[in-house]
């Protein structure tokens, strides 16, 4: 039967949020058949110094879904290119590549999810674990005239961090942003959250 001419997978692009990078493309459809895909990449080094050299992606050498998590491939803050080809049996399509190179310093940084807890008079904050690259810039203050903002860096998410010992009956507010040192960027601040310490009498 007539050999099917496999088109190169179109619409290749990288979607990156909070340092998780996903390569996607439009599927190549061959009725009644399962088309597989193979992904390779080049960093700035390969492009300038060994331009013919492409490296097989860590997780997507033969996959059937039109998507690949390339977070483990993008391991430096330089521009990367990706290429994908479709495979059907012994047949392979041409490679398609990114229209624009991708650098992880363009990742979208969302403001952090935060929980503030009072344990007695202790004000405690907890952030979601966003991975090894994320620290949290915390700003907190007592809600009272000419009160002063205080700052703290929380080095990792997923653990409780003591902010301050509160005065009885006083209200305290907290806001935070993520900081990713290796791309020298930070997110917007999240919504301010406030909490009131118990009154002194309440504890007797």
């Amino acid at each position, binding site marked *: 039967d007539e050999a099917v001419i496999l088109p190169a997978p179109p619409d290749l692009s990288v979607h990156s949020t909070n340092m998780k990078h996903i390569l996607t493309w439009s599927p190549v459809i061959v009725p009644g058949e399962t088309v597989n895909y193979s992904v390779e990449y080049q960093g*700035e*080094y*390969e492009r300038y*110094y060994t331009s013919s050299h492409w490296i097989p992606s860590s997780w997507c050498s033969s996959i059937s879904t039109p998507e690949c998590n390339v977070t483990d491939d993008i*391991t*430096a803050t330089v521009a990367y290119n990706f290429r994908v080809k479709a495979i059907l049996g012994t047949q392979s399509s041409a490679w398609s590549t990114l229209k624009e190179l991708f650098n992880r310093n363009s990742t979208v940084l969302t403001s952090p999810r935060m929980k503030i807890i009072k344990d007695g008079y202790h004000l405690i904050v907890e952030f979601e674990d966003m991975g090894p690259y994320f*620290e949290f810039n915390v700003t907190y203050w007592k809600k009272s005239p000419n009160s002063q903002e205080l700052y703290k*860096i929380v080095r990792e998410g997923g653990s409780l961090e003591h902010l301050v010992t509160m005065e009885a009956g006083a209200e305290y507010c907290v806001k935070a942003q993520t*900081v990713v040192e290796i791309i020298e960027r930070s997110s917007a601040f999240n919504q301010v959250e406030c909490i009131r310490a118990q009154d002194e009498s309440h504890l007797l």
Partner: protein
Amino acid sequence: LRRCLISMDIHHMEKSFQGIKTAVQAKDSFQNITILSASETLYNITSSDVCCMTKDVLQFYVDKVFRNHEESDPRIQRGLSTIANSFLHIRNALEQCRSQKNCYCRKETTSKFQLIVRNYEQMEVKAAAIKSLGELDILLSWISRNYQPKATT
């Protein structure tokens, strides 16, 4: 102290190298020779010369070492690619730092760097490249010691 404050993922580079170190060093058939001669070169560098030495050594690795090694194992390719691209990023940052902060080289530092190049050029190219790749742990720990993340400086 004229250090250049650079954001770099030294932990990831060290982790990448640890993953391929045994395989890379096993390919080195001249175990009793050193190219970096760390005790005569890297470990004697004053902090004001760190910037210059780093720039020259990384340039050397990018221009000569990675280039002269052909690797067929994808796992090792990925590890070396992480380090090569990270070196490129650091070198680009040092270039900017150089123009701003005179990260120039004193004669003494240049001659230490020349010793590394001479050691390299005395060996056959592929043997020299694989040996230098095997010595990446020495270079990475030296870089790690000399560059603190900005937040802690």
